[in-house]
């Protein structure tokens, strides 16, 4: 077991290095740089581009340097000092921007995951046990409906409905009056009243996948001899179901955590922009658009890294549960 974990940890090193390179390449792909964006904004607003200021900003951000120097400066700062560089547009260190938002991102993603599980689990069991029944069709239909609806559209429609018919303030995770207030019980209640929207919207797209996995896994188990035996021995259908097949079917279900997180985080980007959530999504999208490169690169890298770690954790859990995997 220790060897397995060590081996997996070792594999992580080149993966993370590659991720950092790719993250850097992604943000350097589009033509121009952050100052192109600044000049663009100035001229779009009718300002004369003040070349002096621009030139000194270019020097300050080190934008005149070659790509590999920029990469080295960035990566060495992270490795040696835990310094992720400066956000050009926000004029503050990247670290001061991302940790809080990363927390919100993962908070929402985990809540969503929980939400999906709570719904997908019984629905999956139901549609496996009642295969090809009307009920199976109906629940899978709604599951897939969530998958099929583009979530940015769903977000906008739900927002409009909330405003128009319930008068609820939308956008963000709390009402405007709580925005600059400290955390109180009231603010927490307000958060709870807002968080359902992103959770439902992001969750809708992930639900179908999990229902399908649960259904397929359970179907695999349901016709195995031990189930038939248990049934023959007169075990009640409900207990029989929960005692064996569901437990076995749960294993692969757990392993989905690894890959569902990046899906949720990616899905979260677009939804967060529409809903203006204080997560990494809008920050990342904006950073990519204006080529605020250290900010964008750092977010991409951190999210990817956490995904790698998540996959590792779920693999280790599985290996711990199932010794066969360990020795593969």
């Amino acid at each position, binding site marked *: 077991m220790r060897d397995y974990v060590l081996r997996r940890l070792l594999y992580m090193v080149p993966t993370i290095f590659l991720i950092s390179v790719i993250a850097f390449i992604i943000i350097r792909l589009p033509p121009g740089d952050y100052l192109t964006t600044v000049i663009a904004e100035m001229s*779009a607003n009718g300002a004369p581009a*003040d070349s002096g200021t621009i030139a000194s900003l270019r020097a300050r951000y080190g934008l005149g340097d070659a790509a590999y120097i920029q990469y080295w400066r960035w990566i060495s700062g992270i490795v040696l000092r835990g310094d992720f560089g400066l956000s050009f547009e926000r004029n503050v260190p990247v670290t001061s921007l991302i940790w809080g938002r990363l927390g919100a991102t993962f908070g929402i993603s985990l809540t969503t995951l929980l939400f999906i599980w709570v719904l997908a689990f019984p629905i999956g069991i139901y549609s496996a046990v009642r295969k090809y029944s009307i009920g199976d069709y109906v629940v899978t239909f709604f599951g897939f409906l969530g998958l099929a609806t583009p979530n940015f559209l769903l977000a906008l429609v739900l927002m409009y409905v909330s405003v128009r018919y319930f008068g609820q303030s939308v956008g963000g995770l709390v009402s405007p009056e709580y925005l600059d207030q400290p955390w109180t019980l009231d603010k927490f209640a307000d958060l709870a009243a807002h968080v359902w929207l992103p959770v439902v919207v992001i969750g809708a797209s992930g639900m179908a996948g999990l229902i399908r996995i649960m259904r397929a896994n359970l179907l695999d188990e349901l016709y195995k001899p031990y189930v038939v035996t248990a049934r023959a021995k007169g075990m009640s259908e409900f207990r029989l179901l929960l005692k064996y097949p569901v437990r076995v079917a749960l294993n692969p279900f757990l392993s989905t955590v690894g890959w569902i997180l990046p899906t949720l985080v990616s899905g979260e980007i677009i939804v967060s922009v529409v809903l203006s959530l204080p997560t990494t999504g809008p920050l990342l999208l904006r950073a990519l658009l204006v080529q605020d490169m250290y900010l964008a690169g750092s977010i991409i890298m951190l999210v990817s890294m956490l995904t790698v770690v998540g996959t590792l954790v779920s693999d280790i859990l599985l290996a711990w549960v199932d010794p066969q995997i360990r020795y593969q």
Partner: protein
Amino acid sequence: MLLKMSRRAILAATVALPFATAALAQPYQQAPMFEELVKSGKLPPVAERLPAKPYVEKPFDRVGKYGGTWRMAVLGGGDNYNFVRTIANENLMRWTPDWTATEPNVAESVTVNADATAFTFKLRPGMRWSDGAPFNADDIMFWYEDVFSNPQLTPSKPSIFTAGGQPVKVEKIDDTTVVFRFVRPYGLFLQQLANGFGQLPTIYPKHYLKQFHVKYNKDGIDKMLAADASAKDWVQLFNSKITPNYLTVFWQNTDLPTLFPWVMTNKYGSVERVVAQRNPYYWKVDPAGNQLPYIDRVTWDQVNDVQLALLKAINGEIDYQLRHIGQVAFKSTLFDNQKRGNYRFFDVADHPANDAVLLFNLNIADPVKQAIFRNKDFRIGVSLAIDRQEIIDSVYVGQGDPVQVSVRPDNPLYNERLAKQYSQRDLKKAGEYLDKAGLDKTDSEGFRLGPDGKRFSIIFMVADVYGLQYPDVMQLVQRQAKQVGLDIQIRTTDWSRLTSMQAANEQEAYLWNCVGGESDVYTDPRCYFPFQTEAIFFARKWAQWYADHSTGEEPPAEVKNLMGLYDKVNEAVTDEARTKAMKTFLDASADQFFVIGIVQGPDKFGIVKNDIKNIYPKPLPQSGSMWGPAPMMVQMFFDK
């Protein structure tokens, strides 16, 4: 304009006098939130915080009362103008609300010499920055000597502070008097100072900034640099503390003292809600002696999508805003929700010279395209092929005028030929002009061939921004041009993409709007001749040459002649002379016909809560250089 200005200055002084005496006769009042602070000694009494002669703001309606929060929405990034245009326009001069004349603002008075080469500003004795430190001639001299004249901080001098190729010279006469001198007559200088970009002399507080300047604090800076890994030298450090306020850095330094009515309490970009509190040292009062502004706080909720700003508006979460909200496409939704949001519309007189302009790149590298684009017959042909009314009917819901780039008809500078030439659709004539321009052969699909025998395709760049619907306009233009055999290809992209294209001078043509529909044409005639160097425009290399003859590309004689005519406008000393020079220039510009205008659109709009008073009663003037509604916001108040 100068004569008018002087007259107005005198007028302002005489009008202000009774107010000032009236104000002196009674003690000044302040916002209730300051009473406590003054009592406990944390803040000096209001009379000490105000200058000897505060600026007296004339209310549009009546004297207001204190209190309330003005709520707006701001985009998650790059939306500096949201602050700039609402709380940040305190220059030496200002425009009158109707945008017809300039008057002293931060300056108490101004006198101009006979040939418009020396401008003497009297400052207000006792005036203070928002942290309580005195504001005087030393601050302006700090800007001039240590920022503007410092080759590291200002490697190239902003054009509005230069005349005849030489930068301004500023002298301090005494603590409250400074003189700006130019080597050539510069009659437009006071207008330029009143414009948004005239901010520079009054945004640099010496007492705060000198700690970051190598001249004043060499040792201290070394320590700061050691502590701050993101700055490599003092120039970078200084630039991370202050930039002109149209750049984001300005709004991210909450320690920076300003002269603005509200001061930032948190950093734009790092928070979900940006908050500005009233400035206890603000130097304007109402006629009853109440220190302005009336409203306590300004907040901007951050949104990442303008649709959310619209939702906030219809939900009553926005008190007064035109930026992002005043889009044609939003109007019907806002209209339907007026009651539930408890707001009404106000008109915005944002009068560009044209709302949609086809700009062919006259400096394109491709010799075939360059020759065609530079041919006036080609541009006339394209212009005649456009069905402006169809575009107005579909994109602007039937509202707007089908005219070229031109000053608006109600302005004395209006030139009918400039406005109306080649604006009537005539497919037959359009075809003849295009034939004349050398596009007289067609291929099997009916598209015109260029002189090189290949299909003459023009790639038009369009930015889909600010709800301007340019991709829609372009699509209609494309269809209409096809009817005379012109192949137009549309590429939708974003602004920064466009900017990198223009840096490489790659764009063939693009669609944008043109400023200069009203008096701003004096200071920004970018659509009337090659004038704009940095932004993507129609003849960047010629414009570069105009700014500095050692760069860019020398234009043909007729274009140089036009440039000379604009120099005359800049140098004119009297209003009459300037107007006359401008008219001559505009007429000559009409002969060149550089760009093709499509429509002067309907008035823009904003929304305001029904309980907000002292709103400018007429359509609110706006332009790229005049940053409204900031100058009119201090008198706005909630009447609940």
